[in-house]
């Protein structure tokens, strides 16, 4: 019986540490990216995968009980809620942004079929390399 408890502890803490590592990657990404829509990409990772790994580790640690069922419910709720909130924040940013051409590349097809590309002003001088 003792070895099962040790295995439970090792697996649980490995998953917990993995979740914390993903939180660390999230923080690094949030501080290094330059624009909100890029930052959101890093932030959404911790919302689903990071907390998912943490709660999965806690489920393994607490064993087969009612607590672990409720933790599973939290994970499932986050799976549904995180994409919705990310979508709403992205829509808010696109709506209230008044200088879009400074932030990201835009392409537009005119009536006569030509493609017009607008590159962010700060990166105009770089030769063809657009992010």
């Amino acid at each position, binding site marked *: 019986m*003792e070895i099962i*408890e*040790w295995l439970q*502890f090792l697996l649980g*803490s490995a998953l*917990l*540490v993995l*979740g*914390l590592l993903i*939180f*660390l990657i*999230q*923080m690094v990404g*949030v*501080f290094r990216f330059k624009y*909100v829509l890029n*930052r*959101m990409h890093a*932030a959404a990772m*911790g*919302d689903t995968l*990071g*907390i998912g790994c*943490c*709660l999965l580790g*806690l489920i393994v*640690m*607490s*064993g087969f*009980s*009612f*607590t672990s069922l*409720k*933790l599973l*419910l*939290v994970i499932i*709720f*986050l799976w549904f*809620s995180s994409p*919705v*909130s990310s979508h*709403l*924040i*992205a*829509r*808010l*940013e696109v*709506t*209230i942004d008044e200088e879009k051409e400074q932030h990201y590349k835009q392409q537009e097809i005119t009536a006569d079929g030509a493609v017009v590309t607008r590159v962010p002003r700060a990166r105009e001088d770089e030769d063809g390399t657009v992010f």
Partner: protein
Amino acid sequence: MENRIPVLEQAYEVVFVTALVILAIFLMLSLIRAIIGPRVADRIVAINMMGTQTLAIIAILAVMKHEGYLVDICLIYAMTSFLAVIVLSKVYMGVYRQRKEERAGQEKQKEECGYGNH
């Protein structure tokens, strides 16, 4: 989760306390992000992140102290922070539209005044 092995009990304690300290540091970092974030969406993203990390802290405390009811609080907190993000983004969109309309109205008024003077 009842441990009769004292070494295992201590190991659990160390892992939980370390995880809590690291999560507290991350919470402070996301608060800094919320303060320096240049745009409104930046701050809302940071608030969302803080909610997620608080969720992890509450869940860890629930398992650490063997208190099952803390997980219920965790679930309620998830719902509340989700609602907060939705309400904040909707409110800011409404505020932006209102300001835009006001600006358009002011410009119209200015134009009308200009024509009146001539």
